[in-house]
């Protein structure tokens, strides 16, 4: 966001909370977009689980007609509440926020790990396809690869970085920190989408700092997509 920054969020109606086909342990939360702009792939939204004090940052997974879809791993109280929402219920949505992927690159390659595949179906929508390599910890988790048809999949203990091609590609990566560090080592020009606990998502709380260029910077303002080098 530029200019005045965020001024107000929107209340969005839940359309459906489900997987589209089997997507492993993950949940797809679909909300009516209303007037909410989808933004650039890799940007994120703050979704407020009803009854909780703080919203949760989620990247947009896919845009389907008038719906915004978020891929969620129910790992804590907030994400469990989001995944338990019912059609017709409403939740507060703020975004899009932060800096997304620069997709104006000649040879994009999607590299995703686990729930880190969340932003890539929307990336693929905007790119009109493109190669993808994904890593998962189990065959059950790997069912989510169905969200990116044609993707190559590595299952633990095989690492997704072992699928990186020899020729240089414009890597777009999101996944657990060790995966991002391994990608950074192999592809210094990669664009890496990081994750951090956030209270606000728009630079107010200073909770989400990560080390960038040797300094602790707010991921929500500087990222969440950062250049590897």
């Amino acid at each position, binding site marked *: 966001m530029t*200019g*005045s*920054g*965020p*001024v*107000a*969020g929107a209340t969005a109606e839940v359309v459906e909370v489900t997987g589209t086909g089997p997507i492993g342990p993950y949940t797809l939360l679909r909300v009516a977009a209303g007037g909410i702009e989808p933004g650039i792939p890799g940007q994120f939204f703050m979704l*407020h689980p009803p009854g*909780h*004090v*703080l*919203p949760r940052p989620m990247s947009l997974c896919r845009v389907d007609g008038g719906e915004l879809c978020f891929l969620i791993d129910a790992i804590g*109280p*907030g994400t469990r509440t989001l995944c338990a929402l019912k059609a017709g219920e409403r939740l*507060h949505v*703020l975004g899009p926020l932060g800096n997304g992927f620069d997709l104006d690159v000649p040879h994009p390659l999607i590299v995703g790990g686990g729930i880190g595949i969340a932003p890539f179906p929307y990336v693929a929508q905007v790119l009109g396809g493109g190669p993808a390599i994904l890593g998962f910890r189990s065959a059950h988790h790997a069912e989510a690869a169905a969200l990116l048809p044609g993707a190559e999949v590595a299952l633990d203990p095989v690492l997704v970085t072992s699928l990186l091609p020899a020729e240089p590609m414009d890597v777009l990566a999101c996944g657990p920190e060790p995966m991002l560090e391994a990608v950074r080592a192999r592809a210094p020009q990669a664009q890496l989408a990081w994750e*951090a*606990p*956030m*209270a*606000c998502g*728009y*630079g*107010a*709380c*200073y*909770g*989400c*700092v*990560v080390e960038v260029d040797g*300094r*602790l910077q707010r991921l929500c*303002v500087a990222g969440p997509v950062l250049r590897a080098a």
Partner: protein
Amino acid sequence: MSVSLLNGSGCLDALTAPGVAAQLDAFVTKTITPEPREGNPPVRIVETEAGMLNSIGLQGPGIDAFLTETLPRLAAQHLRVWVSVGGFSSSDYAGICERLEERDDVDVVELNLSCPNVDEAPESAAEIVAACRERTKARLYAKLSPANSDIAESARAVVAAGADGLTLVNTLRGMALDPATLKPRLARAFGGYSGPALKPVALACVLACARAVDVPIVGLGGVQSGQDALELIAAGASVVSLGTILFTDPAAPGRIRDELKCEATARGYGDPLEVRGVANG
């Protein structure tokens, strides 16, 4: 004359969210320290059942960069600026007050005497206020901790030392454990507890201090609605600050201002400020 709404120090960056700051009557900066500070290592924030913990640790540019870079940019936004001042000794606080003295774009200096996330100055709050009073003619507000065992006595002491107003309250020190590992979830274990759970604590502190001293009081702690703001005014606040709610709802200042007016009107008051002190009866 109506109730002014501010942000709690450290709960808004007017430079990244100017549209939110523009909804406020004045903008309170993050606490400024003598030297630049990286702050505490992450994890720095965690949600709890009825609030949140933060362990930011006064990350900031230090007074030099604040004066040359931050303050001119804030002034360009035509904001009334309250500068929150911190330090690790009374001379730290007083030195910053002296540096701010030459600036006419600072409305109020708020002394953060109660950050739960850094080591405290060895001097008492009143001693720090007295040291600052010697070095500045600016309006000085003392921000006190709700953990104070006798906050009314502390309020009397800082007012006697020269404070022009009080900001009540800062966060309370707390901790959250990971349910699986039973280890602290914050990297520094402890953090400042804020959010809805703090409101009853803030109400009690505001009332106790309003009975003890006759200075303006900025009330903050768990305000989520106009009703919450009205309650703080009833307890004795004349200004209300918003903290954790800004993280959830950047439109909160405008919404709460509207709700506050409606809540006052619904009780037969022409202006929310007429409610001030009603709880003290």
